């Protein structure tokens, strides 16, 4: 089931009364987010990631195109009833404590007061802020505010969670805890829409990602599909390939690299692949597996952005 669907969504910000200026934040964005997946939206600063989330939650309005969340058109209150949102650079009222903040936003979410306090305390425990529940949030660190923001986004037990840079300012332990929490939420069926520029984290938890550049989607797919290197394979062998053997192989197929029991091969077709396999088998080297060579998400991301800019 598709939870979020956008169709040719565009957003142009206009400013200035006399000297009008325009900034295109989104250009014909078409994406789909499926139920129960963690969907990552990646992109350099100013790519339009935050604009897209704001439009989905009616904080901003699209200039053209359409979108639905739970098959409801944008602006529908039921979308916001079923959504949780952690905005980037959120600011909570500093005169409230962590517990008061959650109680206040819970009430604004329309939650019942009786159950709300228990829920707020449980969430503070989940995000590791139980001991800070009654401290004024002006005393909170950046990481603690992020955790509080996450608890706030989870108050209504949302079906879809929009997170804009959720681990910004959080220490490595905290990041891991947040990742674990997001995985747990996904396992319980929550759909998660994650905006982040910390690609190593996205790689660890996202099922699918979309890469946005200058307001346009340049790639959508699973992390595996995006990080897969075309025509590059990794041969996992039972024993080391000697340097001499590797040199012989390079004469047949240049671009071969060895690394212990691993052999990296660039093969453009099946014939070239089979040549390597035959060579290894002839030398009595057993092949355990052959996989596509993968780059990190960061490498793929940079390659895609550079290609787009070129």
């Amino acid at each position, binding site marked *: 089931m598709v939870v979020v669907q956008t169709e040719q969504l565009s957003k142009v910000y206009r400013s200035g009364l006399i000297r009008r200026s325009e900034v295109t934040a989104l250009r014909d964005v078409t994406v789909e987010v499926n139920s129960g997946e963690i969907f990552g939206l990646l992109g350099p600063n100013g790519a339009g990631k935050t604009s897209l989330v704001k439009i989905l939650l009616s904080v901003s309005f699209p200039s053209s195109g359409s979108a639905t969340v739970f098959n409801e058109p944008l602006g529908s209150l039921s979308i916001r009833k079923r959504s949780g949102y952690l905005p980037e650079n959120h600011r909570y009222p500093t*005169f409230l404590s962590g517990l008061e903040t959650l109680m206040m936003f819970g009430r604004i979410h329309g939650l019942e007061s009786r159950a709300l306090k228990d829920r707020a305390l449980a969430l503070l425990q989940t995000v590791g802020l139980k001991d800070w529940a009654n401290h004024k949030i002006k005393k909170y660190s950046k990481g603690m505010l992020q955790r509080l923001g996450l608890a706030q986004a989870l108050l209504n037990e949302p079906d879809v969670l929009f997170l804009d840079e959720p681990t910004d300012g959080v220490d490595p332990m905290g990041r891991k805890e947040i990742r674990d929490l997001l995985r747990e939420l996904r396992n319980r069926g929550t759909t998660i829409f994650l905006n982040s520029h910390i690609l190593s984290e996205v790689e660890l938890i996202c099922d699918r990602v979309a890469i946005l550049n200058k307001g346009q989607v340049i790639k959508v797919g699973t992390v595996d599909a995006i990080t897969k290197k075309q025509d590059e394979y990794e041969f996992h062998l039972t024993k080391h390939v000697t340097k001499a053997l590797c040199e012989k192989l390079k004469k047949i197929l240049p671009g071969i690299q060895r690394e212990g029991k691993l052999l990296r091969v660039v093969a453009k077709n099946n014939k070239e692949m089979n040549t390597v396999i035959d060579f290894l088998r002839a030398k009595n080297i057993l092949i355990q597996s052959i996989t596509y060579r993968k780059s990190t998400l960061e490498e793929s991301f940079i390659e895609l952005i550079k290609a787009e800019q070129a």
Partner: protein
Amino acid sequence: MRAELGVFRYTMLEAVRKGTLIAYFIIGTLIILVFAVGIRLSPDDAVTIEFFGTKMGVREIQGMNAPDFWLLQLYSNASGAIMLFGLFGTAGLIPSFLDKGTAELFLSKPLSRTNLFISRFLGALGGISANIIFYTVGMWLVFGIKLGVWSWGFLASAFFTSYMFACFYSIAVLSGIITQSTGVAIIMGFAFSLLSGMLETREFILFRIWDNPVYHKALDVLYYMTPQLDAMKNSAGTLIGKLNNPAMRQMTNIPEQFTFLPYLYSTLSAGALYALSILYFKRKDY
């Protein structure tokens, strides 16, 4: 409705925690206490009012009972001060929830922008009204208990002053929502309070500056298109005490009878300003 109540409650809390309304509450309490301790009827004749032992007046002042005259002065001075103090205390409440990082939190909640705006406005108004009611009821009790004067008109002035503030606040709200600046909202509110006073007496000052019928008409239009603060204040004043002396009436600009007309005009103009604010708020990207 729960969400709207949540915003209302939060706004009141914000106004209180920022300290301004607490300061007003303390000031109001001190004024009430000063009168509670200092005012009494002279034990000699049971007619003369004494204020900390000093004889302040007899039963009749300018054709009006002295206690009524005092209450009218208290109402008149306090309502002017309340407009300005109220402006300082609440002007920031609209821009503050539109700040980057805060607006997203409110706008992503399941309530319409219109309801969010109205709840926020009512929260701000509620904070000021609570102070007005506290001050008015306190003074009403002091005058009732100490002087035996139970002025229902003065008690009713709590409602009229709150209503007057609601109309006046429309200027600060519209300025605040467009510019997202507390400073601009205060300046615009303050400037309007000056303009409103000048428009009320335009025949005596502004008309004499330039004897041009188009200019006079423009001032008339402006007067009827904006909340009529002084006219509302003076009309409600008649419920407290009627000045029988025509010269005094002309000097204080208090009409002979209570009239709803300034309230009607102000409701229409403030309503239009609030409608504009909502329209702008509903269409703005945050």
